[in-house]
């Protein structure tokens, strides 16, 4: 049905397509297109996000982690402060499945401790005859779930009278794995609370600066520049020093998040301001003004929805900074203090080289830090790509 070309160089014949012609066909949509076109913004974003495999996997991983911290007591084999005085600085145990060529399910070997009289190091050796099968949905340490329900059910516990230290123990004989699980609570939420604070500050300050401009904009810009030029470590130290030692650990925790949030809003405020400056020039904003809409309505209904998705992506990418900040502060002893447990606190155990040389498993809390930060970065990447589905 298509036009036949003449021989090279020959005159072109007048060709008229004989195919049926429908002037509306260019506006007609295939079913698949119609589905795209009828979808709301959220749905489009989800479709686009879904194609970013790494982001999707990261999102699921993070969801699982946040689900876990709600029921940390149940997931962790031991309680946070359970001390096993016979197993101080015990190395990680290996989970095995076969014993003497027979499958007997997951189990660990019991251990015997001997003191190395040269280095005064405790040396643990597996006792191959002491098979300690793991128990699942079992009774172990007592705890109150969400501070309410007294129970002692755990996802996994050691055999009766046995031990289960998958990531080893620390200098008080506490299970490192359980402490990492408990520590996730603080480390993962401190990012969220801090980001909420910086989010609110960033939107309000950046939004006002962008929409109204003038001297306020100028002031905000300069404040942001000053804040961003401060070296962060000394500033943290100064701010941490303000908080009285007599405060309870919980209040200190909030103080730290507040500090992190108050220092972090600058980037977000800049993003908001530039977005508002760009969107303010769109015709639909002018149209709303010409309808007589007040500035509150314009910001709330036309401007903010326009860049909300970008903000969420930006926020996601800045959560890792918060987590790292907490970890660094706590590691330096400026942030949280025991008995509160976070990943940074756990890492303080590994502050001296000799400890790391003898007991390398005390560095294990680094792994969740790395994983979480990578996951947040991937997730933010995916969100940012999906944030503008109309492009």
């Amino acid at each position, binding site marked *: *049905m*298509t*036009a*036949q*070309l*003449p*021989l*090279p*160089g*020959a*005159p*072109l*014949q*007048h*060709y*008229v*397509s004989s*195919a049926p*012609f429908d*002037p*509306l*066909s*260019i*506006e007609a949509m*295939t079913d*698949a*297109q*119609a*589905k*795209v*076109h*009828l979808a*709301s*913004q959220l749905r*489009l974003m989800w*479709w*686009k996000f879904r194609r970013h495999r790494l982001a999707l996997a990261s999102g699921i991983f993070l969801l699982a982690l946040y689900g876990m911290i709600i029921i940390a007591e149940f997931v962790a084999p031991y309680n946070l402060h359970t001390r096993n005085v016979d197993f101080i600085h015990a190395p990680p145990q290996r989970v095995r499945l076969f014993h003497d060529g027979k499958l007997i399910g997951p189990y660990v070997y019991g251990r015997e401790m001997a003191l190395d009289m040269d280095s005064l190091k405790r040396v643990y050796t597996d006792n191959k005859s002491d098979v300690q099968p793991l128990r699942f949905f079992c009774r172990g340490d007592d705890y109150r779930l969400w501070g309410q329900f007294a129970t002692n059910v755990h996802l996994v516990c050691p055999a009766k009278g046995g031990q289960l230290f998958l990531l080893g123990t620390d200098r008080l004989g506490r299970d490192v794995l359980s402490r990492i699980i408990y520590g996730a609570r603080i480390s993962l939420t401190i990012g969220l609370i801090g980001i909420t604070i910086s989010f609110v500050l960033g939107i309000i300050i950046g939004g006002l600066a962008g929409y109204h401009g003038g001297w306020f904009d100028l002031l905000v810009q300069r404040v942001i520049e000053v804040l961003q030029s401060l070296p962060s470590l000394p500033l943290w130290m100064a701010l941490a020093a303000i908080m009285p030692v007599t405060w309870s650990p919980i209040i200190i925790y909030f103080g730290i998040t507040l500090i992190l949030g108050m220092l972090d809003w600058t980037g977000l405020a800049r993003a908001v301001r530039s977005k508002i400056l760009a969107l303010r020039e*769109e*015709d*639909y904003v*002018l*149209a*709303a*003004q*010409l*309808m*007589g*809409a007040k500035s509150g*309505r314009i910001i709330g*209904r*036309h401007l903010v*929805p*326009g860049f909300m998705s970008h903000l969420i992506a930006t926020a996601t990418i800045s959560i890792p900074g918060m987590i790292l900040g907490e970890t660094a502060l706590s590691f330096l002893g400026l942030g949280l203090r025991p008995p509160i447990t976070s990943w940074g606190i756990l890492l303080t155990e590994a502050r001296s080289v000799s400890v790391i040389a003898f007991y390398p498993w005390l560095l294990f809390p680094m792994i969740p830090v790395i994983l979480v930060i990578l996951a947040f970065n991937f997730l933010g990447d995916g969100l940012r790509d999906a944030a503008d589905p*109309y492009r």
Partner: protein
Amino acid sequence: MTSGSDLLRIENLGISFSMLGGRMHVVKGANLRILPGKVTALVGESGSGKSVISQSVMGILPNTAAVTGKILFTDPVDGRTTDILQLERDGPDIRALRGSRMAKIFQEPMTSLSPLHTVGNQISEVLAIHTKATKSERRSQTEEMLGLVGFSNPKRTYDMYPFELSGGMRQRAMIAMALICRPALLIADEPTTALDVTIQAQILELLRNLQHKLNMAMLLITHDLGVVANMADEVVVIYHGEIMEAGPVDAIFRNPQHPYLKGLMAAIPHFDMKPGERLKALREVPVNSGALWGKRTHEETAPEVLVSVRNLTKSYGIRKAGLFGKQDKTRIRAVDGVSFDIRRGECLGLVGESGSGKTTVSKILMRAVTPDGGSVTFDDGKGKIDVLAAQGAKLLELRTKIQMVFQDPVSSLSPRMTVQNILSEPLEIHGRGDRASRLETVRALMQAIGLDQRYLNRYPHSFSGGQRQRIGIARALALGPRLLICDEPVSALDVSVQAQILNLLKDLQKELGLTYLFISHNLAVVDYMADRIAVMCAGRIVEIAPREIILRDPVHPYTKALLAAVPFPDLDRPLDFITLKASGASDERAWGPKFSGGDSDDPLSPADLGNGHLVLARRNVDTRELRSW
């Protein structure tokens, strides 16, 4: 070079993209050829696949595209034939062709030059890539090319930055860059769409002259049949990725066969239309505004003049900011002593090129821009309103009476709101009715613009340009305005859709008794819509008259230039480049002593030629003398 060969043969080309909603076939089995030294025009609406074809020729398709078929390029210099689709993507073979043997100029001159390099630097870079010329040779060749494309002082232009050039001049620089290596094929993708009509005519003339002089073939991609009639040797009409009609330019224009091509031709407004003659849109929209508002009863008592604009001025300061605060300002007069009346029920057309101040005038009327001086009075029979002084409740009331239709159908609708929200927002702002009655009004609005009510929950991105523009019109109508300011409402739309929107606006005006201020750079469009036409140039109205008079008996040289610059889709009415050159277009110095103010202390003032025909001229010049110009 063998005499009987094609420069470019596209055989059975198919291009598809993988999209969110599955695979989309944008070009289906297209065949076309370009002879050496000839111009082939590829005509179609937006979305027809014409730009994609040009991208595939240059090998610059996006990664998501899949291509089938053949694109055979025969270089007239050595007679070698290469299939461009077989070349490695961005490999050395295709790079040797690009810029050297085939070149492309783009639609948007403002963004296609790098702002950080001088014009000469960018042009001679092509030479540096493709030739072994030394630095001084490159410079001299570039300057020669710049002279060829019409720069009067190529040596100076070589060292200028793009921001120092106007849009038309940048497009000339782009052309120089494309032609510097004397390519065998030039692809011009809508080369003049972003330019004003008088500039467009200049660029078209330049392209035609160069094409002859360099004996170069050209693939001209455009949606404007007027441009095609003036430029092409062979024409290919494409619709929805399929070629509808192809042939020599004579056959296409004198004997159009396909309903699509006939439809396109019928949709173009032209100056020979009889009063009341209606354009035939390819896709007509039924108008049913009956349910919108009750009949207006008070109209009979209202005064004849709805809006009266007197002596409006607005100037912008260009701030030369130094390191420490602001320094002296240069002021540019965007609007300079503009006066006109808009009569109730009429459509006043405002014509002018970009930068003439027509949009600023409209924004002053809408109170989006505050003028430096002048007055605007609005009177719909319920008492006069001083538009520029209105505040608070009065301003809010005014907002319901004057509304605006925007140029850009994409940016004028909030992408995060459904059609229903968009249309009911003005009602919410002004607290009209309750939820149910608002929905009722929104439904009536949808009916008035001929859109299905099932579309209410869809988002703007799911509509075509024309549909979005209709939604924009409906939003402007929601509050029942008296005056609708249409700021270039069709210039972003295809010809076929343009006719549809113009007809819709016409029908709405008749049924609802609206008054329009219709702004456009396209004189033919304004001619179709307006009862009276005002021509603006450099912030001043240079001529205002009823539409028949302006067209039949234009007095001002600028008006004449505008009229001469509109390309017709008619082989018997080619663009008159000589008249165009003589009239000098928007260059005031070329207007002759009667019309240009110069430095004399005799200011320009509107001279009355009778029948409401005013021309801006020297006060001491007799009206008869003006006509004899």
